[in-house]
């Protein structure tokens, strides 16, 4: 007992130490930056960098705020409504703190590791503490590329936008392990998995040099070679089918297996305590997802418009297909079904958003609703894990379906836009349905392997350090009181 208590105390103490270290680092950093700026002052005499379009900036800031909203409160409410009253705050808390933690780590090293040049799997450390994004000597900002030439964006905007992606991805996993995991274990797992699964997958899928680097055909191969491994394969993932949903969905499933079932699972009725909250969550997810998907165009352009309408339409289609399928099969259409259908549609259209046309949105939406309904009913029974809030059935399955269907409906013959084949001349094309499908499958496969292995190890490490589960008594009492000393409601 005493040892347990000590362990409990140990973690925040460590964290406090971390804060102190951080403060020191920052102080150093201040001076280091000064030096860096002095050095940077010389080449600043070059012609002024192109200025971001204010419409793009407006849209990307809005999008970033929208994606933040997707985690807090949207995902927290979607998940929180599905657990029992006694665990409500623990879910809200896990999402709130993990979101914050990953956001901070993103600025400390995550962004650098994911989005600067390194090898095909990991980036480098040149942007630690976001060093170099703002030059305090001359007030200038560094620029990030978009998907159009001569269309820069403040790198800080890109940093913020991507931070919300990293943070929500880790939060998604929580749905599989709620109502029984220790809060300290959640934090330890999050740090490890973020570092060794999210960052490399994001780097593999999304890191490349940007269009402006591709000035000449002769440079193409060398430039491509510096890009992420999956990017090099030619995989299409507009807003995170692999990076976000498959990545999180598989990790969640692993967590459900490693943790074991909740006390009473399968015997007692474990009912959602507030589907009202779940509906609010799902609705805000839909709202915020416009930032997630259409924001992934990085500009307020036609691609954003296409991603936007696809996100809208596919989601509405998935609501209908889940609702009608459930009505047909189970006899009654449920609100939780409609809300789940919306999320399924959103997940599936994520990799496809700007990569397919209207026919793709119809098809992906209608299919996603039915596939994920099967995921949380039929498939769930086969798997026999207590994936508490169906992260696997919705996010992994929806993500995989979406990733593969993107390969198909990207085809211009099915109304899709194809993809840029030549970044020097900016021409688009489509390698062929089988080819693209294979590439997509490879991307899916790699992601699954990486996240499964890393998640397993991360959970095991957390188990070693603090133990994964609360005691049965604490679980019975509810995590709100036992882990956080509060009650969600006093009405």
């Amino acid at each position: 007992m005493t040892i347990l208590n000590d362990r409990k105390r140990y973690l925040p103490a460590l964290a406090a130490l971390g804060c102190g270290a951080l403060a020191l680092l920052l102080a150093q950093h201040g001076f280091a930056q000064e030096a860096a700026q002095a050095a940077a002052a010389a080449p600043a005499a070059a012609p002024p960098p192109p200025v971001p379009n204010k419409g793009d900036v407006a849209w990307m800031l809005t999008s970033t705020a929208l994606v933040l909203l997707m985690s807090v409160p949207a995902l927290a409410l979607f998940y929180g409504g599905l657990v029992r009253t006694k665990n409500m705050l623990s879910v809200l808390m896990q999402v709130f703190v993990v979101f914050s933690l990953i956001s901070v780590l993103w600025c400390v090293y995550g962004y650098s590791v994911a989005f600067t040049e390194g090898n095909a799997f990991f980036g480098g450390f040149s942007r630690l503490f976001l060093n170099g994004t703002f030059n305090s000597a001359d007030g200038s900002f560094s620029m990030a590329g978009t998907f159009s030439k001569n269309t820069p964006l403040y790198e800080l905007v890109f940093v913020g936008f991507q931070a919300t992606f990293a943070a929500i991805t880790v939060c998604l996993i929580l749905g599989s392990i709620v109502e029984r995991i220790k809060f300290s274990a959640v934090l330890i797992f999050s740090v490890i998995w973020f570092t060794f699964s999210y960052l490399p997958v994001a780097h593999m899928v999304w890191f490349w040099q940007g269009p402006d680097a591709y000035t000449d055909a002769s440079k193409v191969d060398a430039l491509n070679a510096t890009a992420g491994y999956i990017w090099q394969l030619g995989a299409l993932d507009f807003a995170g089918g692999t990076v976000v949903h498959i990545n999180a969905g598989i990790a969640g499933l692993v967590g459900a297996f490693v943790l074991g079932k909740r006390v009473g699972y399968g015997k007692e009725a474990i009912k959602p305590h507030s589907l009202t909250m779940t509906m609010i969550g799902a609705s805000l997810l839909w709202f915020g997802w416009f930032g997630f998907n259409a924001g992934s165009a990085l500009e307020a352009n036609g691609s954003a418009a296409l991603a936007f309408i696809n996100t809208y339409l596919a989601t509405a289609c998935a609501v209908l297909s889940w609702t009608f399928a459930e009505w047909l099969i189970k006899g009654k259409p449920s609100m939780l079904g409609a809300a789940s259908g919306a999320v399924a549609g959103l997940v599936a259209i994520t990799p496809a958003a700007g990569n397919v046309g209207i026919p793709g949105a119809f098809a992906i939406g209608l299919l996603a609703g039915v596939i994920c309904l099967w995921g949380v009913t039929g498939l769930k029974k086969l798997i026999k894990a207590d994936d508490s809030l169906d992260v696997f059935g919705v996010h992994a399955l929806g993500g995989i379906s979406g990733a593969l269907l993107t390969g198909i409906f990207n085809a211009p013959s099915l109304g899709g836009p194809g993809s840029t084949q030549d970044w020097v001349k900016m021409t688009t094309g489509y390698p062929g349905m089988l080819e693209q499908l294979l590439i997509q499958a490879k991307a899916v496969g790699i992601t699954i392997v990486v996240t499964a292995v890393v998640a397993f190890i991360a959970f095991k490490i957390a188990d070693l350090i603090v133990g994964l589960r609360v005691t049965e008594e604490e679980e019975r009492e509810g995590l709100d009181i036992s882990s956080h000393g509060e009650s969600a409601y006093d009405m």
Partner: protein
Amino acid sequence: MKLITAIIRPFKLEEVREALTQAGVSGLTVTEVKGYGRQKGHTELYRGAEYVVDLLPKIKIEAVVPDELLERALDAVIAGARTDKIGDGKIFVSAIEQALRIRTGEAGKDAL
């Protein structure tokens, strides 16, 4: 004095309360309860998980009445609560040995 405990359907509360007041009952206490009995429950489905719910929402009314009012009060409850369908509920009668009004300290029938 007797304690009348009536388990009734929630939407009948207002009618029963009025009937009791008419019958001369001066006060009563109401509790939201769940009842299990002959009345069939329903099924709820949350994604893959199906639950049969056979604890149904009921209202419990407790009224302490002087002995002479008992019959009239029982009739009043039945009149107000009856729909003739399974699940209308029960009435239980038990003895109360003493009653006190907290405000005044009055005891017995005067306290009701």
